[in-house]
C-alpha cells in the first residue's frame, strides 16, 4: 500500500516536471525542471532497490550532463525569435510523427511486459550471480555478460571526444 502511494506520487511528479520541461518558455527554467525530473527518477530507482543506479543517475545526469546543458543555454542567446521557414507546419508534423513513434514504442514495451512479467527473470538472474550487493552485481554483469556492449559504448564516447577536439581545434 505504502509502496503504491510512493510510486504514484513519484510518478506524478516525474510526469509533471516532464510536462513543465517542454512547456516552460524560459530555457533555463526548463533545464531546472529537467534536473528535478532526474532527481525524482533517482528516487524511483531507490524504491526499486537499485541504489547504485539511483546515485549514478544523480551523479552523471543531474550533476554532470545537465550542468553542461545549463552552460550552453546560458551562453547562447535564446532571446531572438526562431528563423522562419517556408513551410510553417514543418515542426508540427515532425513533432506528431516523433510522438506517434514514441507512443508505439511505449505500447510495445507495456504489451511485452504483460506477456512476460519481469520479476521472475530478474530474480533468476540475481540468484545466479556469485556476488551479493547492488554495486557488485552491476559490476559483475557489466564485465561478464555485457562486456562487449560496455566496451563498444566506451569506444563510442572516445570517438565523440576525439571528434569534438578535431572540430573545436583550428590546427592540430
Amino acid at each position, binding site marked *: 500500500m505504502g509502496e503504491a502511494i510512493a510510486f504514484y506520487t513519484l510518478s506524478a511528479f516525474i510526469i509533471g516536471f516532464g510536462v513543465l520541461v517542454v512547456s516552460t518558455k524560459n530555457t*533555463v527554467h526548463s533545464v531546472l525542471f529537467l534536473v528535478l525530473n532526474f532527481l525524482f527518477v533517482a528516487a524511483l530507482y531507490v524504491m526499486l532497490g537499485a541504489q547504485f543506479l539511483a*546515485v549514478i543517475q*544523480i*551523479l552523471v545526469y543531474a*550533476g554532470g550532463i545537465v*550542468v553542461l546543458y545549463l*552552460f550552453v543555454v*546560458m*551562453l547562447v542567446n535564446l532571446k531572438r525569435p526562431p528563423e522562419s521557414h517556408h513551410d510553417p507546419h514543418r515542426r508540427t508534423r515532425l513533432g506528431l510523427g516523433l510522438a506517434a513513434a514514441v507512443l508505439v514504442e511505449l505500447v510495445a514495451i507495456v504489451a511485452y511486459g504483460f506477456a512476460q512479467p519481469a520479476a521472475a527473470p530478474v530474480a533468476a538472474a540475481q540468484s545466479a550471480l556469485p556476488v551479493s550487493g547492488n*554495486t557488485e552485481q552491476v559490476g559483475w554483469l557489466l564485465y561478464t555478460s555485457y562486456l562487449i556492449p560496455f566496451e563498444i559504448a566506451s569506444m563510442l564516447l572516445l570517438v565523440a571526444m576525439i571528434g569534438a577536439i578535431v572540430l573545436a581545434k583550428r590546427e592540430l
Partner: protein
Amino acid sequence: MINSFLVPLLKIVIVLNATLVGVTYMVLLERKVIAWAQSRLGPMRVGPYGVLQPIADAVKLMIKEDITPVRADKWVFTAAPIISMVPALIVYAVIPFGPEVSLFGRKVTLYITDINVGLLYIVSVTSVGVYGIILAGWASNSKYPLLASLRASAQLISYEVAVTLTLVSVILVSGSLSMVGIVNAQYNSRLWFAFIQPVAFLIFFIGGLAETNRAPFDLPEAEQELTGGFHTEYSGMRFALFFLAEYANMIVVSSVATTLFLGGWLRPFPNIAFLHFLDIIPSWAWFLLKSFLFLYIFIWVRATLPRYRYDQLMRLGWKVLIPLAIVNLLVTGIVKVLLLV
C-alpha cells in the same frame, strides 16, 4: 519505534545543529588565525577575545534588508542559495563520527546511516551543489556574477574529475563504497590510507581546496576582478547562506578526507596493543580532532598562498592533477592484482 524513528531524528537534529554552530565558529577561527598570521588581534570587541562575534554577525545578517534586484529572475534568485546550502548539509547523513557505542544503556551508532553506496552518495550530492553557484550568477542578471559563476562552475567540474578519480583508487584499496566499511578496511590493513595512497591524498586535498572555492583557488570570489563574485547581488540572510554553504563544504571535505585517508574515528595505530591508553580519548573526539587539523590547514593555506591565475588553475587541474590521478589509479590496480596473485 524508538530505535527506528526517535533515535535517527535525534541524531539528525544534533548533527545539523552542531554543523551550523561549527560553521559559524569556523568563520571566527578563520578571522583569528589570519589575524595572527598577519600580527593582528582579530575580532576582540564582542565578548572575551571576540568569542561572541559569530552571534553578532548572524544577528546582523538576519535583520539586514534583503534586496532582490529588479531585473533578477525572482524564483531562481531565491532558490540558488538554498540549492547550494542543502547538499552541503545532507552529506552528513553518511559521515561516520564513530563506531557503535552504548549510550544510556542503548546501543547507538555514531552515524545517521550507513548505506552501501555511501561514497558515491557524497560525490553525487556535492555535484548537485554546483547549481547553486551557476544559478546565482545567472539569476542576478548582472555581468560580474555571471562571469564569476561561469568561472566557478568550470573550476568545480574540472577538479571534480581529479577528486573522483582519487576516490576510485581508495575504493580499490578498501573494497567498499560504504563509509563505515572504508574505516573498517583501514583498521584491518593496519595503516591509514594516507600512507597507502599518499598521491591520492595529496590530489584529494588540493582538489578539495579548489572545490570549496578556497584560497589559492578562490577565483570565483576574486574581488579585484569580479567585485565580489557570484554573490555580488545578494544581501542579508541569502548572502549568509552562500557563506555558510562554503564553510559547511569545507567541513564536509575535511570529514571525508579524515574518513578516507586518516582512519576516521580510529586512534593512531589502532592495532598496536601498548597504545591502548589512547582509547581514553573517545572515538568521536579523534574524528573531530583530525577534521579540525584539516580545517586549520585550509585556513593556514589561505593565509599563506597567493591566488592562482585562471589559466594556471586550469593547467594544474587538467594537465597535472587528472593525469596524476589516472596514473595513480592504474598503479593501484596493477599492484592490487599482483598482490592477489
